[in-house]
């Protein structure tokens, strides 16, 4: 696999503000990469650096083995889907989609065929003569997509293209974008602040924070093995607990976390030589049981303790629980709302909890 897009030590400053801070990253050909981060983290600036709307203050941008750092947008083999769609209001749907081909002086017959193909790809056949203001939000989005894809870019850049759509349509478009990307094999670079969107669509996710890429990995890696406190906190819910080393055995360590709960972790997971670290734990990984006593837990559940349910929030398919352990540590947990045969939890109930050592992620203290 070769790099389709490569950023080498890219920094972008606006006045005194550093939007992108020394980012070096490769984007593999044919992958769906999402830049995920809060607003103002620099993800859009990263996209604009690839598109050519910004020139880096330092570093270089490479696309398909070519240094494009100083090439204007109209000479780069990339196309963008804009957040506001940016459809030309004075042109019809077909003229909008054909704009890029007209600029590249593609022959009329070929252009017409490719416009037809692109519109069919996004299921808009029949709307050729409409103007953008006669279309719904979802249709405009598809026109914007067709307009970019018809140019057959090496990389398609998408700047929060789904943020203006309602939840249901957004969900449908997520799956459709993913399908299109697989079908066409084009590299997609997708910018979003919506973690669910990122987890649904991406081959790999780059967590962007403060102008840097904090972690790059598959959705699975990002969710289950967050590398930094920010990554753990930004993607999904997480119990973030400060852990202090108490005792080190031959193969495990004993730590005390915020509030006083004591946990045992495999020695290999603990940062070598550290006295403190951060433990991240997904709420659904906290095993909660009312019926089992601690002795009934399977052998793998190394950390077993008792707790009281402080709060129970009904969320439909799941229940969100706030637990207070006997030692005084507060944890959140998510349990399935099972059949009446299973456990039913209420505030005030005493429960037994178990944590598997594999479900605890140790993040080095910063």
């Amino acid at each position: 696999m070769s790099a389709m897009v490569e950023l080498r030590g890219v920094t972008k400053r606006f006045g005194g503000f550093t939007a992108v801070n020394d980012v070096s990253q490769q984007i593999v050909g044919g992958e769906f990469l999402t830049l995920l981060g809060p607003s103002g983290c620099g993800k859009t600036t990263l996209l604009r650096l690839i598109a050519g709307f910004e020139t880096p203050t330092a570093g270089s941008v490479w696309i398909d083995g070519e240094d494009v750092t100083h090439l204007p947008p109209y000479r780069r083999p990339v196309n963008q889907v804009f957040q506001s769609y940016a459809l030309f209001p004075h042109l019809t749907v077909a003229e909008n989609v054909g704009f890029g081909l007209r600029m590249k002086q593609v022959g009329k017959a070929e252009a017409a065929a490719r416009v037809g193909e692109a519109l069919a790809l996004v299921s808009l056949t029949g709307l050729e003569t409409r103007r953008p203001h006669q279309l719904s939000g979802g249709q405009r989005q598809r026109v914007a997509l067709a307009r970019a894809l018809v140019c057959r870019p090496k990389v398609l850049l998408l700047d929060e293209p789904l943020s203006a759509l309602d939840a249901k349509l957004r969900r449908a478009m997520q799956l459709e974008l993913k399908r299109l990307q697989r079908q066409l094999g084009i590299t997609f670079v997708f910018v979003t602040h919506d973690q669910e969107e990122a987890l649904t669509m991406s081959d790999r996710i780059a967590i962007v924070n403060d102008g840097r890429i904090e972690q790059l990995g598959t959705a699975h890696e990002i969710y289950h093995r967050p590398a930094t406190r920010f990554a753990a906190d930004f993607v999904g819910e997480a119990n973030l607990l400060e852990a202090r080393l108490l005792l080190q055995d031959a193969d495990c360590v004993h730590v005390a976390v915020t509030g006083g709960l004591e946990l045992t972790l495999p020695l290999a997971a603990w940062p070598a030589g550290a006295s403190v670290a951060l433990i991240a734990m997904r709420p659904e990984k906290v095993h909660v049981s009312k019926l089992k006593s601690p002795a009934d837990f399977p052998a793998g559940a190394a950390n077993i303790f008792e707790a009281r349910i402080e709060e129970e929030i009904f969320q439909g398919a799941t229940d969100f629980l706030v637990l207070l352990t006997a030692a005084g540590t507060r944890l959140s947990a998510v349990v399935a709302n099972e059949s009446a045969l299973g456990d039913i939890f209420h505030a005030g109930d005493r429960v037994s909890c178990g944590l598997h050592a594999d479900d605890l992620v140790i993040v080095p203290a910063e």
Partner: protein
Amino acid sequence: MTPATDRRTPRWRARLLLAPMVAWLVLFVVAPTAILFVYSFCERDEVGRVVFSFTLENYRRVADPVYLRIFNRSIGYAGLTTLICIGVGYPVAYCIGRAREAWRQRLLLLVMVPFWTSFLIRTYAWITILKQEGLLNGLVHQFAPGAAPFELLYTPTAVVIGLVYAYLPFMILPIYGSVEKLDGALIEAAYDLGAGPLRVFSSVIIPLTLPGIAAGTLLVFVPAVGMFAITDLMGGARVPLIGNVIQNQFLQARDWPFGAALGAVFMGLFAVTYWLMLRLGAREEETAA
């Protein structure tokens, strides 16, 4: 407004609100136009009084080649003025419209500053610049002492300079309005789709600011055709335009019916121009909405 909310307010109250404006229009627009129209079919007696009758003689005289030539010349001057105003005004309006927000108001103010001084005074200022022993020739003399002085004042060039100077702000303001509304993402999208700066300008920026150009053209062309003060002062009445002729008929020749006929033809001409521009503007507005 939907018909449902329309019904809630009594019609007569809505009409009452319109009354002052309707009265103003009737008194100062409809009535004078009607009088002008009626006069254009009348005759005059020896001392210039209007004699009510019905004749097409005045309109026949308008068709006289002398006046047709003046009409043509007026349209030519106004057309040239409009083109120069677009050429000079568009870049200015574009720069102001795309400037940072904090700067826009200040730059717009600069465009309006000339309106703080009387139009006549500003025109006289141009005379002192352009006249044979004026500022411009003084400057030329400073740098090229041997060169013959320019003869600018009382030439067609001076008239066009004066017209462009007077009407330029009326071109800049409407174009500024449509440039400011222009979504920057559209320009970026055009670049992204492979359009170089020239193509972006011709394929996206110009079509989307056409309503502004149309409005500016209307605001410049129509008054420029009828202008008489500038042609009098800077053209030295050597190149009479239709405005001068009409003014003469009313004030010097005391042939009001003929002046009225010239005015009526003139207004018909404007109505057609206006209608064309409006249609162009409306079509672009509709697609830009």
